[in-house]
């Protein structure tokens, strides 16, 4: 193949798509269709995201009157119960915001999601967050976007890799549209959901993020999601940011852990709708004392970065604490809602508190930045720490405020927060469950292939079983007819597997006519290698090969012999699967 640069100027090459395709990667006829699909996914996921945001705002404010009434505290409970019921009863899906389910689809299901997922979290989070649940819409938006991408990919008959990229396009489109943040959408899809940086995935994802952003700007206008503010941080502030990074890390751990505590307590309720009801009531009660701690809470974050939050260090700290508690209650109880908004709001309030503390202790005359600047930096830190996604933290905080001048402090806070978090939490809330069950397997990786392929698929059924009472002399006759070196010994009456006979082990005896006639197969067979089950994964089979040192292992099911697995077939199938999943 000629180098890409040469083909780009090749006049015989017809079609713009082909030329573009040659520029970004190996020639592939489907580039055109995938880019078109990516844009479509972007438009649809963007529209769904903007639509959800608008629907929530409308209902949240329509309920303002009721919220102040006597039954106000019950409102979040009703919303949470309804939200969970919609997801688990109407759509029969697992509760929660769904981002782990998206990552599972990428890791285990070839980017396939169910059709109904296009609606489930959208409706569930609409009801839950509108009524005051302390959660974000972004998780459900990510889930919905991913389902849209998977649906379009499925109906266009794409392979796993392209379908997975389209799923990522939906994720990027949703985040890009809801925050008017194309870069953050793209980064989140790549950093958290796909974990694959290649032209193959980046190109469609950028297209989708761009399309979704334009949809959002057409409907809502082009403005920063949290409103523009000016930030200026000097050298002294960078040192303060190191401390803020550590604090953001600790707060991330606190948020993740307290959510997990609520989650585990919730599982003990006898009925699965009792936990959201009880937690909802608590959220409602906290909302009376701290109205800023319920709902999505972007108004609070907006005031925070503009340094317009009500004065007082303690007041600010208590708001942060209240937000921590309401978020844990809402998300931990399984109500559909995401982590983005709580991270941003909690982070911004905590950042303001940090800024106020700093102003209090800093020596007079030292120029330090506004509390709004610290709010911004802490938002990035919380996003990075909670999601284990430093790049998403940096770019999202930057894009929702237009605060490019603060990018260096954002970088410091994000990475330091993650360093602190990693000491306590090995996985993010998105990936923890998958990692624990051994399902966090990115497409095209070695471990994914070894976990995908089962022994059953690589079995060699073409072997000659021999009975234990056969003499080695008779066995010699079988050897003459066979190309194999390994023979399973099987009880001819019951079909039970008894052991293995390897030609090399008995070579000296089969060549001796006298000895081979007085020796039975059952006496000299190898009973040491423990059989594999057909459902074992290739990873397990490899481990067994390593520990036993065998070249060929017997495979049995309920004691009956099914076939042999050899190292050479295993390698052969592994290669084939690699080519099937990744492409040659």
């Amino acid at each position: 193949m000629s180098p890409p640069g040469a083909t780009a100027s090749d006049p015989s090459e017809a079609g713009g798509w082909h030329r573009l395709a040659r520029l970004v990667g190996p020639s592939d006829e489907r580039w055109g269709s995938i880019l078109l699909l990516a844009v479509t996914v972007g438009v649809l996921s963007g529209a769904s995201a903007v639509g959800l945001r608008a629907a929530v705002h409308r209902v949240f404010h329509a309920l303002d009157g009721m919220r102040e009434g006597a039954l106000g505290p019950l409102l979040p409970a009703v919303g949470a119960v309804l939200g969970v019921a919609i997801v688990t009863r109407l759509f029969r899906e697992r509760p929660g915001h769904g981002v782990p389910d998206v990552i599972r689809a990428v890791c285990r299901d070839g980017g396939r999601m169910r059709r109904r997922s296009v609606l489930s979290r959208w409706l569930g989070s609409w009801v839950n967050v509108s009524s005051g649940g302390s959660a974000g819409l972004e998780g459900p938006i990510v889930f919905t976007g991913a389902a849209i991408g998977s649906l379009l990919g499925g109906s266009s008959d794409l392979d796993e890799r392209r379908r997975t990229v389209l799923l990522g396009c939906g994720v990027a489109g949703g985040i890009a549209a809801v925050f008017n943040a194309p870069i953050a959408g793209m980064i989140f899809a790549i950093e958290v959901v796909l974990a694959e940086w290649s032209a193959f995935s980046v190109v469609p994802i950028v297209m989708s993020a761009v399309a979704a952003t334009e949809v959002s700007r057409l409907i809502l206008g082009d403005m920063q999601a949290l409103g523009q503010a000016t930030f200026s941080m000097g050298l002294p502030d960078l040192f303060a940011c190191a401390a803020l990074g550590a604090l953001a890390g600790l707060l991330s751990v606190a948020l993740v852990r307290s959510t997990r505590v609520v989650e585990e307590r919730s599982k003990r309720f006898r009925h699965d709708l009792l936990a959201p009801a009880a937690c909802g009531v608590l959220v409602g009660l906290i909302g009376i004392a701290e109205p800023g701690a319920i709902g999505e809470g972007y108004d609070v974050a907006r005031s925070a970065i503009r340094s317009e939050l009500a004065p007082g260090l303690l007041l600010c700290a208590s708001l942060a604490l209240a937000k921590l508690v309401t978020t844990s209650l809402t998300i931990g109880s399984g109500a559909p809602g995401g982590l983005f908004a709580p991270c941003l709001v909690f982070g911004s309030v905590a950042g303001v508190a940090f800024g106020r503390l700093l102003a209090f202790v800093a020596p007079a005359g030292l120029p330090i930045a506004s509390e709004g600047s610290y709010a911004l930096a802490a938002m990035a830190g919380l996003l990075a720490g909670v999601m284990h996604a430093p790049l998403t933290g940096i770019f999202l905080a930057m894009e929702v405020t237009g605060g490019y001048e603060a990018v260096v402090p954002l970088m410091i806070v994000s990475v330091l927060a993650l360093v602190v978090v990693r000491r306590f939490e090995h996985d993010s809330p998105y990936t923890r469950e998958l990692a624990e069950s051994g399902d966090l397997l990115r497409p095209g990786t070695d471990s994914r292939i070894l976990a995908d392929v089962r022994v059953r698929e690589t079995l060699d059924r073409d072997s000659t079983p021999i009975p234990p009472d056969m003499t080695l002399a008779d066995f010699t006759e079988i050897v003459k007819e066979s190309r194999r070196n390994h023979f399973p010994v099987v009880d001819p009456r019951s079909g039970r597997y008894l052991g293995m006979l390897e030609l090399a082990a008995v070579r000296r005896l089969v060549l001796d006519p006298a000895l081979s006639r007085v020796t039975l197969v059952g006496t000299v067979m190898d009973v040491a290698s423990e059989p594999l089950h057909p459902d074992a994964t290739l990873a397990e089979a490899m481990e067994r090969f390593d520990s036993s040192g065998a070249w060929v292992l017997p495979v049995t099911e309920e004691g009956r012999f099914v076939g042999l697995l050899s190292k050479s077939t295993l390698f052969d199938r592994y290669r084939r699967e690699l080519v099937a999943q990744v492409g040659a």
Partner: protein
Amino acid sequence: MDRSEAARLLGVSEATLARWVRQGLLRARDRRGERFDRSELLRWARERDIPVETAATAPERLAEPLLVEAIERGAVVRGAHCASAHDAIGVAVDALRDLDADGRRRLLEEVLARERLASTGLGEGVAVPHTREPLGDLIAAPLASVVMLDRALDWAALDGQPVHSVLLLASPTAASHLEMLAQLGRALHHGGVGALLARRPERAELLERLHQVLAPGAA
């Protein structure tokens, strides 16, 4: 240690080892990548779960004359007077004083059961009764007892000749059984041990001959 020793330790080729050094996966002690520190290699392998071929992990060698050891642990009976193969096997089992009464009873049962399946008469006047399956739960090391009969017995042997010597083999594993049989084959075919047994030699003479025939290097 040098490159070839290090490669052997890690169970890879020297070329692989050289590539690992080039890619910085593994550190050599010198700049040319030819000297390695043994303890550092072992630590490196342990951190990555790479199995190492040390003396302790190397598979046990069966090259020693196992048959000689088994007879030394077992017994040699000269001039037993037996009326049948059944009797001769009984004498051979009873001579194994390493086993307690229960063990000998079980061994006898299993050897007779195997004998019923097919004759163990090897030819040249020698029979090798043994159990059908290894006796790993009964014995830790192979045992053998040699019984030289006063009067040759019919054993339905392959060559139709009567049997003058019975060599009972008891093995804990299939591998040790295979090894003893192979050594016996060599002793009979190349060492003239069949003819020697026919003369009913002293225990010391028999063991000396077997040792000569089976010692590593003697072919």
